């Protein structure tokens, strides 16, 4: 088991390295002089000496491989540079916004599991009935609906019908849990519903596979109640691959938070990202990419290790 864990973690390091390098390359792909984007229109009025000074401050005058080394060294240390806008370290800016995004993601994930797993199970045990087709269509609808449409409707419809607008001021979980949950409920609901479609389909497929197995037939033949067979035997085994899929969905979840936080004005990483994009604040954009990629890799490691715990076959292969 330890071997498996160590191997899994070691596998992640080159992935993270390549991802960071990819981010590095992306940020420097700008056509033309980066200074133009950084300084904007005032560049024409700034004397060359000052332009070069800013370039030096940002470390952009060093040869590209030196820049790369400094970047990677920074990433491993946790130093992601300074924001172009207000000179605060990127790490601090992200640290403040991280809890909000994590809370949103976790709530959305929980909500999606609460809907998707029961629905997937029912869809599987009543395969090819009207209920199955209905649930499958709803699941596909869930993946097809644009997050920003649902979010926008969720804001304007209550405004039209009940004259209620969600508050713009964010209350953190520490300050006032009740208000916080009330505020996060709707965004989490929407994000979770979008995720639920995929989870439901995977659950259904896995359940169908498991239900065809011989040991299920034995359990039924022994006279066990259908419910017992499903919950005690089938579901436990079917859920294991579902856990793996959840790891893959983390990337989707984080992408979703960008849109949802934007619509509901939640002060999380997603909104920070949009602001940084609008300001062309490249250190922040770069830093967020790296942080988000790290999160996805870490969650996938955790998921794979827990997969090893849940399914003994994996450990010994």
């Amino acid at each position, binding site marked *: 088991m330890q071997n498996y864990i160590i191997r899994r973690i070691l596998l992640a390091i*080159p*992935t*993270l*390295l*390549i*991802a960071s390098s*990819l*981010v590095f390359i*992306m*940020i*420097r*792909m*700008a*056509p033309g002089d980066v200074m133009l984007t950084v300084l904007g229109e005032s560049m024409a009025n700034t004397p060359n000496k000052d332009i070069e000074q800013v370039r030096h401050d940002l470390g952009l005058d060093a040869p590209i491989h030196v820049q790369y080394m400094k970047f990677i060294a920074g990433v491993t240390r946790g130093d992601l540079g300074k924001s172009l806008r207000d000179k605060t370290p990127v790490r601090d800016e992200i640290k403040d916004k991280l809890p909000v995004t994590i809370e949103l993601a976790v709530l959305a994930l929980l909500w999606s599991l609460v809907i998707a797993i029961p629905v997937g199970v029912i869809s599987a045990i009543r395969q090819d009935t009207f209920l199955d*087709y209905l649930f499958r*269509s709803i699941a*596909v*609808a869930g*993946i*097809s*609906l*644009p*997050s*920003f*449409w*649902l979010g*926008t*409707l969720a804001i*304007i*419809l209550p*405004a*039209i019908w009940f004259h209620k607008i969600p508050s713009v001021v964010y209350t953190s979980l520490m300050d006032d849990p009740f208000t916080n949950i009330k505020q996060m409920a709707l965004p989490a609901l929407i994000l979770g519903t979008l995720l639920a479609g995929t989870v439901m389909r995977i659950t259904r497929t896995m359940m169908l596979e498991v239900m065809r197995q011989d040991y299920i037939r034995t359990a039924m033949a022994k006279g066990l109640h259908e419910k017992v067979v499903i919950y005690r035997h089938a579901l436990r085994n079917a859920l294991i691959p579902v856990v793996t899929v959840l790891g893959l969905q983390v*990337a*989707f979840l*984080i*992408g*979703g938070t*960008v*849109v949802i936080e*934007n619509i509901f004005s939640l002060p999380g990483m997603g909104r920070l*990202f*949009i602001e940084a*994009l*609008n300001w*062309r604040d*490249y250190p922040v*954009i770069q830093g*967020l*990419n790296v942080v*988000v*990629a790290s999160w*996805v*890799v870490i969650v*996938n490691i955790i998921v794979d290790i827990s997969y090893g715990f849940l399914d003994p076959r994996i450990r010994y292969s």
Partner: protein
Amino acid sequence: MTVDNSTSNIALEGLVKRRTIPMWLQPLHTLVTRKYLGTFGAAVLLTMILAAVLADVIAPYDPVAQHLPDKLKSPSAQYLLGTDQFGRDLLSRLIYGARTSLYVGVGVVILGTGAATILGTVSGYFGGKLDIIFQRLVDAVQSIPSLVLLLTIVSVVGPGILNIIFALAFRQSISESRIVRSAVLGIKENQYMDAARAIGASHLRILSFYVLPNVLAPIIVLASLTLGQAILAEATLSFLGFGVPPPHPTWGSLLSDEGRRFMIAAPWMAFFPGLALSLAVFGINMFGDGLRDVLDPRLRGSR
């Protein structure tokens, strides 16, 4: 003794069914007669294509023309889906938006699926170090959420319809190459591959005659699902303001921030673009699902 060689033996009549359509049309026939949702999806896609192609003919107004005295009018006989804050007809904007969405979508499908086929086939077929390195690359790219990746690229290289198509195609090709690769790996297991190599068939010949025809089915399904994803991704980018630049109307930008404050007074502005988008993506996904059900068991693809 006379030998009766005619096939008009009455006893056999009900057993032998003659083909009425050529074999390559068989999947389409199954789709239409058995998979109703898939056919519905195909109909939606067809409608969208027609709207895009015939936009100039069927759109009642110019999508960028402003009729300021008629601004924020609710749906009526004159403006079938209402007008926005500048008096632009929503229906016409939706019809032209279909054109943009399809243009981007088809571009992404052709470039992305094409690249994915090449990458996945080479990686899966030749294997070895190349494959391992490529898989690490795919892992790394996939660990950055696609929206984050796309926004970063667009913010760096600048907006513009070609930039968006390339960025989307890049991201899609990476995820798709995984699926093509596993399909190719599945085919490599077959004995006829060993036989072909044994008689000295060149790699190119094996790839063209044995590998590609068998991965064709999963690729077709993949292409159709990618279309839906690409349209949704383009709309999301446009919504956030990083999509196709104005004045092209795209479904995503119709829902974006600048119109938002008017949406409480004029909810049709929010309702119809999103509905069009959802319906289109839903239809395309259904079509892809139906296609998969029809093609896969037949050709035993690797899904």
